[in-house]
């Protein structure tokens, strides 16, 4: 537990002497395989939630034999309590574009898309202008790659990569069966790299700062830094870039109001950590990973209400196609209500916990698979609050 909380300035960094396009030119001068090796070496993992090694994802896609490939930037950002991608797209969109262009160059894609959630449509106008400009730069460099923006339909599940492809193809945003994975058959069933907004910026910045600089940050399993969206009972809500691998207690010391009883790490689909576990919880892939959301609850909060809100969210946002998730979410929600009202015995919570195991292993996509995270961590740590 020797890591200290450390604020970092990579993502939003705007040093005067650096022309962003130089970063692109530097990358384009490198062999594609070297960029992949660098990325793998850097240990950069996806910042969208699943934490897949970015270099490996690119490698798989590059190795696919196909004339048509795509690069997609996932800016659906629907996880409750997450608002960092909006900030990134607002403040440093060129860094995102450059990450996408490097990706296009590396994997051999000619088209890139930014899939942006409907709620962020107010950003699109400004973004499009900068993008038009950027696309021109790409043409000037004779790079056969162009980026376009696509607006999402507003469903949380459309952030799930295969549902996102379905949505882009004009169908209902329903997740697909896997395999095949996007690297083999993604958008239009063609090999596709899909990365989170933030992931793409780190690609750009690794190219700028070098692998070593990035690797110095974080831990063995969680290299680098990450942008956090801090919300809830904090005097200083907002966006912070922090080194990965920090212990939660330090985070709480820095951000909470002195009365934190729990932190929900990773948004509604993440885990709830109670005060007694702050000391031995690490924020990172070896501990509790997060897409960036950190929600702090102080002692005035009812954890029943917190869980109820989350379950309501999932009950509504499940795409509804698969049984474990569609019906499971409703059963969990109605189940805690029934326990609260005394219509079901407290032991019913244990039946529901078993149900979350089925949801975790049998649901079709990450949405249904992760509903058990908040459910079990809140029920286990705040059982009395749920029952009484």
């Amino acid at each position: 537990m020797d890591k200290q909380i450390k604020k970092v300035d990579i993502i939003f960094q705007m040093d005067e002497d650096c022309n962003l396009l130089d970063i692109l030119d530097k990358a384009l001068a490198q062999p594609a395989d070297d960029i992949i090796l660098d990325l793998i070496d850097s240990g950069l993992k996806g910042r969208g939630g699943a934490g897949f090694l970015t270099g490996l994802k690119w490698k798989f896609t590059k190795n696919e034999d196909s004339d048509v490939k795509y690069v997609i930037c996932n800016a659906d950002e629907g996880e409750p309590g997450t608002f960092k991608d909006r900030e990134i797209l607002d403040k440093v969109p060129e860094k995102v574009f450059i990450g996408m262009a490097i990706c296009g160059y590396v994997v051999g894609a000619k088209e890139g898309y930014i899939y942006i959630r409907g709620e962020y449509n107010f950003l699109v106008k400004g973004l499009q202008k900068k993008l038009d400009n950027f696309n021109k730069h790409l043409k000037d460099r004779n790079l056969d790659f162009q980026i376009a923006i696509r607006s999402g339909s507003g469903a949380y599940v459309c952030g799930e990569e295969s549902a996102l492809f379905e949505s882009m193809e004009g169908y209902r945003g329903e997740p697909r069966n896997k395999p095949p994975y996007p690297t083999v058959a993604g958008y239009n069933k063609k090999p596709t790299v899909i990365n989170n907004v933030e992931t793409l910026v780190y690609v750009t910045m690794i190219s700028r700062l070098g692998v070593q600089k990035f690797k110095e940050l974080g831990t063995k399993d969680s290299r680098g830094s990450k942008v956090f969206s801090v919300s809830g009972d904090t005097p200083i809500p907002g966006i912070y870039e922090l080194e990965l691998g920090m212990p939660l207690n330090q985070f709480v010391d820095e951000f909470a109001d002195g009365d934190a009883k729990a932190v929900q790490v990773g948004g509604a689909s993440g885990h709830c950590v109670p005060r007694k576990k702050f000391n031995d919880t690490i924020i990172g892939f070896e501990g509790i990973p997060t897409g960036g959301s950190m929600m702090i609850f102080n002692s005035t909060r009812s954890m029943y209400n917190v869980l109820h809100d989350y379950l309501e969210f999932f009950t509504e946002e499940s795409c509804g196609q698969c049984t474990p998730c569609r019906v499971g979410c409703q059963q969990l929600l109605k189940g805690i209500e029934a326990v609260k009202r005394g219509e079901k015995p407290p032991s019913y919570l244990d039946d529901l916990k078993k149900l979350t195991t089925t949801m975790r292993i049998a649901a079709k996509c990450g949405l249904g698979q992760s509903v058990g995270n908040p459910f079990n961590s809140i029920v286990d740590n705040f059982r009395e609050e749920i029952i009484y």
Partner: protein
Amino acid sequence: MSKYLVNLKINNIPVSVEEGTTILEAASRINFRIPTLCDHPDLNVAGNCRVCVVEVKGAKLLAAACATPVSEGMEVFTNSEKVRTSRKHIIELLLSEHNSDCTKCFKNGNCELQTLSSEYRIGDHVFLDLVKPKDKIQDISSPSIVKDDSKCIRCQRCVRTCTDLQAVSALAVINKGDQQKISTFLGKPLNEVVCTNCGQCVNRCPTGALTERSYIDEVWDAIYDPNKFVVVETAPAIRVALAEDLGFDPGLRVTGKLVSALKKIGFSKVLDTDFAADLTIIEEGTELLTRLKRALVDNDENIALPLMTSCSPAWIKFQEHIFPDLLNNLSSCKSPQQMFGALSKTYYADKINIKAQDMVVVSIMPCTAKKFEANRPEMRDSGYQDVDYILTTRELAMMIRQAGIDFEKLEDEKYDSILGESTGAAVIFGATGGVMEAALRTAYEIVTGNEVPFTNLNITPVRGMEGVREATIKIKNVKPEWSFLEGVDLNVAVAHGLANAKILMEKVQSGEANYHFIEVMGCPGGCLGGGGQPIPTSLEIRKKRAEAIYAEDEGMPLRKSHDNPEVVRLYKEFLGEANSHKAHDLLHTHYKPRKRY
């Protein structure tokens, strides 16, 4: 391209299968059945019910066996503790949102969810009842199909059927989460939307969410009414499928037993729609030749070609909705069922001295759309509703069971006369391509005086299960009055299932194809795969039924419609000649454009 063999183990038993095989299929090769609900052999993989989940060694998640291809070295467990627990949970969850009033359900005894829950002995519900009261209100707006959302398990088989097999898209998934459901456009009643009543969704619904509108009680009431004379007619495809619903394997022909059972049930006369099928051939064949003459000799530009068959009411409604600009191409002939009805209450009623208003005409059909067809306002040319009630093959099987008839032990009996005689040409109406074949057997002979130049009258190019089939027949040695057809290549095409029909219609519209005559059946396989046929259905089953149909044809003494003596007599005594004024009054109809949604 030859496929690699993949080696894996299922429940510790080694198995080798071709690359691309699903776990489900691989398991069935070594006789492990994995339960399924959303999976259907006719449909694209959905993988959404999750009942088929299995454990793959080393994987954190269970895999949906229907949607997961095998891979080398895979070790699969189809009944591990994890699998069993999850599967039970999933069945329990489905039951919790399902209105389980099995004893009152039309599908009681033939429900895949019921079977599964009894297999797993799902006892007292652990989970809360989630059935929404508003979902218990059935949509009974359609004369053909009843939709009961409280029975729906969201497997989306109906949606895939309606969209992929039938290209109709009357049913779609709407909303998400707990509000997700299968709905018509804007939730309108089924009778107000593009639904063709084909009932293919009914054939594939695993539960009682989609069923036919049943008229069994009305038919019993008519039979019990001493003042009613109840005649029944049976469509060609019933005789090769009914047995499946009474416990026999697909492909068994039970024509004689069918007649016997209907007599025992108490119908006053048991007649054969096949008679009207032969009649249809005379009328439609004549219409074809007349259109050809007017187009080719008179150069009449108002004549629409290709002529398209009009026996399938789902296909008719499909055209009215989707291709209204091609309505003139449809033959004006009524379907055999409706020709039969119009004649029953006129010619036949006269012959047997029964007043038309005392006659009840019941038809046994492989079809749900026939229920709609009989209700069309155009179908009252006898002065009454020409056909009163339509029962599906499934409903007839229920009546046979209700009547306590031991079907297996029945002696064969013969159809009553008149309106009971038929030929092999009529029987093959039940299979895709059959109307085409029957029409060609007659038309060719009218024009040339010779039989069609195919061995044993079997026009094999128009047979089979290919979605769209084409054939060209050279007309040679014509009679003098048909000299304009000498040497003409008659181009014909056959499609079955409405998605295939759509492909064919687009070809016609674009002018890419140059056909003279097209047969379309709304259902895959033709009537033998109709929406009123026994459940389940699959390509295998439909092929067996087709074999039985063609065997029935081969076994008939008469195999050409124009040889049917009762049809000959009908023209002599009543109609005059084919396409006569009287024939037009009773046996022909017209169509109307309908909205796209």
